[in-house]
């Protein structure tokens, strides 16, 4: 076990380094608050439970968090554009059950089914994107409609019964391992790195932030805002489809009731990680930290035998504290500048 102190210092370090990189520092502010909380919780749990710091448990946490982390990354992309996607739970369920149906009834293999799930998610994302970018509906309303339509389609597709009797191979993406590391964790890492790099290293990523900060200014600067918005929603939808596939694969069945309330978990992860619902701010790394923070609270509660109902209170407190510190530090940075 490594000692806690060096990492704690590291979490506090950005305080002194931020002078020149104000913009970046503002992003890092909430992240470092959440990261510090994550680290503290990790250390506390390591001492409080003998079972916490074991490879099995850590892999469990990673796999348990995979779906939420991937879908929260999708949500972050949308939130940066000053949007919100309420349809993620329904779309994840739809992708999962349709993937399961293609395997059960059409004999597709797990990889084709995964592609189908991603395509279903992307199609739902395209619908959201068109409603927002072309029909000019507010994202909240557009995705509220998709949330309802999606859940309805899930019930229509399944006859309101779970899709069972799938071959064992269906579990590969949710339960499989490569070199002893759960596949779901590797997929999550890949998604995080790819979307993070897209946001921070590409012109498209810069445009997304610019659009979220000031859509009109972005338009005048010649950014193709409508096309970009559509692309963001399609990409987010595809990730939600992937998440839905992993969720279905983990339980080897297509569950029509999967993901009810999931949108709140992923919005919480993004917000704890520093994404701003006012747009223009948010990073995938922060969202991952938020997702793992929520996951650690849940894992720790079971390990320590804490009443389930306290978990929700704790998550709520974390949202308040993380966002409060985020805003407090942003204000201080702006005052200094």
């Amino acid at each position, binding site marked *: 076990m490594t000692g806690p102190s060096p990492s704690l210092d590291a979490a506090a370090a950005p305080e002194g380094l931020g002078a020149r990189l104000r913009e970046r520092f503002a992003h890092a502010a909430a992240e470092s608050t959440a990261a510090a909380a994550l680290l503290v919780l990790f250390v506390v749990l390591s001492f409080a439970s003998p079972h916490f710091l074991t490879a099995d448990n850590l892999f469990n946490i990673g796999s348990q968090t995979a779906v939420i982390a991937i879908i929260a990354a999708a949500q972050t992309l949308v939130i940066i554009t000053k949007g919100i996607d309420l349809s993620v739970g329904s779309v994840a369920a739809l992708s999962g059950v349709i993937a399961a149906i293609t395997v059960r009834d059409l004999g597709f293999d797990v990889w084709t089914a995964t592609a189908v799930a991603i395509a279903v998610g992307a199609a739902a994302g395209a619908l959201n994107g068109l409603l927002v970018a072309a029909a000019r509906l507010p994202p909240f309303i557009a995705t509220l409609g998709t949330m309802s339509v999606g*859940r309805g389609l899930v019930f229509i597709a399944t006859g309101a*019964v779970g899709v069972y009797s799938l071959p064992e191979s269906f579990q590969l993406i949710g*339960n499989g391992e490569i070199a002893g590391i759960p596949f779901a964790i590797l997929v999550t890492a890949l998604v995080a790195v790819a979307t993070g790099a897209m946001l921070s290293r590409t012109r498209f990523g810069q445009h997304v932030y610019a659009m979220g900060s000031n859509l009109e200014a972005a338009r005048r600067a010649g950014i193709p805002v409508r096309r970009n918005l559509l692309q963001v929603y399609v990409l987010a939808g595809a990730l939600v489809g992937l998440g839905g596939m992993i969720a279905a694969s*983990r339980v080897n069945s297509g569950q029509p*009731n*999967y993901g009810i309330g999931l949108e709140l978990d992923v919005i919480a992860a993004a917000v704890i990680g520093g994404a701003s619902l006012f747009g223009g701010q948010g990073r995938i790394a922060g969202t991952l930290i938020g997702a793992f923070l929520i996951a650690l609270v849940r894992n720790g509660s079971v*390990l320590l*035998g804490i009443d*389930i109902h306290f978990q929700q209170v704790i998550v709520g407190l974390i949202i308040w504290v993380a966002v409060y510190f985020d805003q407090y530090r942003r204000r201080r940075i702006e005052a200094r500048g």
Partner: protein
Amino acid sequence: MSTTRRWATALLAAAAMTTASACVEVRDGSDGEGATNPDGPLTIAVAPKAVGHEFWTTVQAGAECAAQLAGDVTVEWDGVAAETDVEGQVNLIQNFVTTQVDGIVYAATDSAALAPATQAALDAGIPVAMIDSGTDPQPDEVPLYATDNRAGAVEAANLLADALGEGEHDVALIEFQPGSQTNTERVEGFTEGLASHANLTLVGQQPSHSDVNEARRVTEDLLTANPDLDGIFAANEPSVLGAVQAIEAAGRTGQITVIGWDASPDEIQGLRDGQIAALVVQNPFNMGYLGVANMVEHLREGTPMEPADTGVTFLTPENLDTEEAQAVLEPGCDNPPVDR
């Protein structure tokens, strides 16, 4: 309540004005039930706690079977998407009253919150029968057709004790929806049953919120926290499926005895594969069947509806293929698993 009735009246008045043909009779709560033409076609609204589970789809099959056998009865099947959507169900019942169905058969998502909705229906002259989960208070004229959950869960504890045998054993409980009546009865029944087996210790209790993924997660964490765990009682279908997945993933199938509840296809497969030792199986077909059959008889002949226990069956790998078990597992209207 009077607001609801005023709305109902207003809607009916509007309907009367637009159609301007039929003589619309506004029912008055005071003259009670039996306002319907006993020989005419009947529409009976049937509402599950939530659509989307095998269990409720079987209830629907039972309800439709009873309607088919009675003749000239239409079942209007409608439900909310999530068991937690209590308010949505209150609205649903109000809508049934507004549309003036002949009778309402439903399962309450919340025993206290739905009591006024039941009363409002009765006030509007629409008889109500409860299935699976009743209300508190439950009016005398409203029967409940349900499983005796407590007795079933006591037996689940006994089955777990039998399967584990002599010696000290740690066991855990996966409940589903803390606060719901059915959940409370199963939890209390199981703990009551455990009390008579001193060698069993309950070391963990976690809810799945009827979500397979969540059941899997909490079971994984329970297995981590309790390396000596020997047995699990999972109290409904999603809880069982998630628990089995977690045990399988941890490579501990066969080391941990699972007693489950309900009988979805994957649970039956788990029983055959040795992942599950026994299943407590309710008779949802009978709930839908008795609810609608007794409602029709009440509407047509005025017979008071009497509550009834719809019964449970204990499935083990040994009795799985018997005729009695199969009638409960694959209920159909050709050979319904009911006493007619």
